């Protein structure tokens, strides 16, 4: 109950592996793609996997699952090489065109059983967590979810997987006992993006999944991309522009929407603004609203009261614009401007618009 003990901590004991499990070698990274596009977390994981593989003196492999007609699959393997993989396991199958739990679990499990890696890493995305949980249970091995730090124990070659718990107020390091592979999912944007080595080569090991569509129970009827929906998706947004009472009057909230439109961002709001009816309740960020974790959070006219802070403090980059130099938001923002948000927002909108236009032009020229 209220005073129960924290997670039991056992003294680190030496893990002695069965002979059978000693045969498990190599570090694998599952290369996640959704509709052909590689998720950045997979590239981050290749960077991290490289370090682990080097520490162990083993190879780093990418794992790509693809439909038979998927032309991009080999390209994905090549991208994995350029980000540090030595080889890629490319599994093709009729049933692997779209992500579905059943065939993907079957595919990845087969690969693991065939090639026996000691470590298997996946991104802690909706796909990665869905897949990892099923694969780990099928293999009956240990899985540490949502890691923020990975390391190798020099004593026993085991994976030390560190993850936040209790809403981030604690960290714990988890080890896998006499089971292999050691599986972990890793949060996106926690590990640094490794440098790309264009032209770096590796070998592709092809594998075929013998599974027919008739064996797959779940069918994909449709995929509705977020761009096509007008519902706010704050928890999943990469960029959020949020406004607070410092904007002065409801009309000025439009300045927040303008900047968001240019950036393709979601619009967020502080509690007082929502209470005052300037923004819809499902845009409220904070204690009684949404918790968000975007790459960029621009807070305009938000003081940063603790209620708001708990909802957005984990953003990768927080920009605060506030006329009060003592506003608490400056204590935890990354960049701050003391000034009138109603003047700075339009200027920022213009600056971003010009820059994005420039970038688009540059892209056209190279194409």
């Amino acid at each position, binding site marked *: 109950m209220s005073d129960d003990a924290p997670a039991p901590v056992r003294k680190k004991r030496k893990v002695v592996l069965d002979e059978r499990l000693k045969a498990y070698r190599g570090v694998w990274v599952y290369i996640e793609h959704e509709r052909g596009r590689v998720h950045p977390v997979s590239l981050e994981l290749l960077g991290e996997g490289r370090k682990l593989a080097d520490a162990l003196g083993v190879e780093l492999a990418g794992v790509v699952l693809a439909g038979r007609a998927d032309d991009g699959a080999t390209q994905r393997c090549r991208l994995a090489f350029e980000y540090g993989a030595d080889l890629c396991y490319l599994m093709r199958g009729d049933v692997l065109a779209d992500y579905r739990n059943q065939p993907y679990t079957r595919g990845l499990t087969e690969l693991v059983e065939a090639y026996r890696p000691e470590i298997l890493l996946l991104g802690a995305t909706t796909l990665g967590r869905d897949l990892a949980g099923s694969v780990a249970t099928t293999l009956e091995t240990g899985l540490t979810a949502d890691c923020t730090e990975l390391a190798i124990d020099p004593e026993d070659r085991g994976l030390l997987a560190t993850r936040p718990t209790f809403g981030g107020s604690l960290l714990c390091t988890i080890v896998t006992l006499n089971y292999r592979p050691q599986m972990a999912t890793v949060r996106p944007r926690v590990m640094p993006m490794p440098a790309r080595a264009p032209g770096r080569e590796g070998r592709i090991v092809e594998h075929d999944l013998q599974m027919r569509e008739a064996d797959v129970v779940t069918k994909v009827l449709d995929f509705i991309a977020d761009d096509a929906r007008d519902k706010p998706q704050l928890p999943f947004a990469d960029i959020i522009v949020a406004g607070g009472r410092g904007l002065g009057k409801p009309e000025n909230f439009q300045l927040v929407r303008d900047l968001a439109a240019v950036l393709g961002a979601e619009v967020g709001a502080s509690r007082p603004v929502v209470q005052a009816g300037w923004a819809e309740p499902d845009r409220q960020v904070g*204690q*009684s609203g949404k918790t968000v974790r975007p790459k960029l959070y621009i807070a305009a006219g938000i003081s940063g009261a*603790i*209620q708001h802070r708990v909802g957005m403090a984990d953003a990768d980059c927080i920009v605060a614009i506030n006329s009060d130099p003592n506003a608490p938001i400056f204590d935890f923002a990354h960049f701050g401007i003391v000034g009138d948000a109603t003047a700075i927002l339009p200027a920022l909108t213009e600056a971003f618009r010009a820059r994005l236009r420039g970038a688009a032009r540059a892209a056209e020229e190279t194409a």
Partner: protein
Amino acid sequence: MSAVKVEEKLFQNRYLVDAERPHIRIRTPSVCEKQCETQPCVVCCPAACYSREGRKVSLITDGCLECGACRIVCDVHRNLDWEYPRGGYGIQYKFG
């Protein structure tokens, strides 16, 4: 208005907010603005639920401690509809 950040205090508390169902309402806002000279709710509320902008009084009940002071001090105009929150909502004291 004051250097004391009551919000930081309230943040320590546990609330189950009944979203979009405030349990206290100002009956006629113009009475606060035009007829109530002292606006004692603004000073007396221990959770700073009442705030003043100019002469206008606005009420946000999220941080309410359900003490009842605002209702009792509104003794001249009786301008509050004051109820307890629905069962299980509102402040939930951890220590009390």
